[in-house]
């Protein structure tokens, strides 16, 4: 008889009724937009950068949020995230409130606000794009850090502070409800 350690078998996987086997795609609404690819996202990104260069910050932000690849693959989402972060970094601090006011009002305004909140959290979760190579803790804390947070220094820290600024302004406009929806919504960006 082969030695089989029954204690190590994860019986939940074998049970079709188990919560581990919960079909997550049942939480996606029927209104989910069609899948997009990274090349679609790249073309959107170039349009958006053009708008931004032309000085239309509000139009750029509006467009980039309206075209979020909710049904896209991971690559498309990554490309789009980079475009959103570029737009956010390209808007001066003094203009934030005015731009946000314009983007989050009118038809579909609250959807755009929720979408922007998703990007802020995703941006904060992602390792800083420019400071990503730096992966050692600045202080020898004794903790093994797999991913340095790079707060307050280097490129990643700068990106973080921009996102936090936007977060503060967005909460003023869209409220805490918007943060809650980032957690519940399965249409990830």
């Amino acid at each position, binding site marked *: 008889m082969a030695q089989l350690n029954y204690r190590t078998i994860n019986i939940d996987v074998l049970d079709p*009724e188990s*919560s581990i086997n*919960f*079909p997550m795609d*049942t*939480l996606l*609404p029927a*209104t989910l937009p069609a899948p997009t690819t990274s090349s679609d996202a790249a073309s959107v990104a170039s349009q958006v950068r053009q708008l931004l260069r032309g000085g239309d910050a509000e139009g750029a932000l509006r467009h980039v949020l309206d075209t979020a690849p909710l049904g896209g693959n991971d690559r498309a989402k990554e490309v789009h995230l980079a475009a959103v972060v570029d737009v956010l970094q390209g808007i001066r601090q003094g203009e934030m409130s005015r731009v946000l006011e314009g983007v989050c009002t009118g038809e579909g305004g*609250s959807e755009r606000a*929720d979408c922007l909140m998703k990007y802020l959290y995703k941006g904060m979760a992602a390792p800083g794009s420019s400071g990503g190579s730096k992966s050692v803790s600045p202080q020898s804390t004794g903790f093994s850090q797999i991913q340095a947070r790079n707060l307050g220094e280097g490129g990643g820290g700068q990106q973080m502070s921009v996102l936090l600024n936007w977060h503060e302004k967005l909460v003023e406009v*869209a*409220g*805490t*409800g*918007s943060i*809650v*929806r980032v957690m*519940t*919504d*399965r*249409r990830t960006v």
Partner: protein
Amino acid sequence: MAAPEAHHLFHNPIADHSFSSDKSTLAVARDSNVELYQKSGNKFSLTDELKGHEKTVTGVDIAPNSGRIVTCSQDRNAYVWERTASGWKPTLVLLRINRAATFVRWSPSEQKFAVGSGARVIAVCYFEEENDWWISKHLKKPIRSTITTLAWHPNSVLLAAGSTDSHARVLSSFIKGVDTRPEPSAWGERLPFNTICGEYLNDSAGWIQGLSFSPSGDALAFTGHDSSVTVVYPSAPDQPPRAMLTIATRLLPFNSLIWNGENEIIAAGHDCEPYRLRGDESGWQLTGTIESKEGPGAGSAREESALHMFRQMDLKGQTQADTQLKTTHQNTISTVRVYEEANGAVRQFSTSGVDGRVVIWTI
């Protein structure tokens, strides 16, 4: 608007509360017991305890006409309590569930009640004369996760259920011999047991925490952990709904809601105060809070003596303690119930929450 009538019963969370039809008795779920309070003057005093459950009681409901109390608990049991000469007598209900019971409500006919559970079933319970006990039938089919809340349609056949799989569903709980055949409605014409009359998911998903049929039964509102309220107007059986309107709020999530007429919803939850929503099929919006924070005690700038101020600064490094919320409830509201109504128009409603308070509000 009159000031809300607050009763601070104890320092424990209240999972659920229910008033008897004459409003003299208040049943409150506290830990593994249900406490009964009687109104004396303008206060409620503890008169009786219903002991029997072994784990936290999650739901309690008093039938308005028969006065029977049904309770359910995390110990997977439900009891029906009847008043006898020697006190309250419990009857065990055979729920046949292997997870906690989470929610219980009598049907408007009082012939049945429904128990939601973590076992992904709703037990619809009715009394069987032959064997002299309460037995249950399970609504099972499309439910993928724990049932968190239930609401009855006025016809006592249709049952709305909210679940942690983010869906609100309308199901038929028709039981032959107990129910009379219901009038056909927009929800369905023939309604055998476990007919699925509607299954709704809003865009931002989120666990459903509270739901309710409108007084006519022709609309369903549900609220979930995504800080939104969704109102559904069904069109015809097996057709997509005529309108499904989602109001995304900027507040913390609501836990419970009731209708006031066909054009107003009262919802309350993690923001510790009730809010009002108004609208119709063409659109709904949040109109504001029901609580007026102008009364005495609400003003945060109370006169403090200089000695007190310096003592506070010394002890806590602040001039005044701001641990009190300005709302009547001092913590999350978990249940909103109609207290007094006439023809679907609510005049008073009651709320209970984590702070151990039961508050009666006059609109």
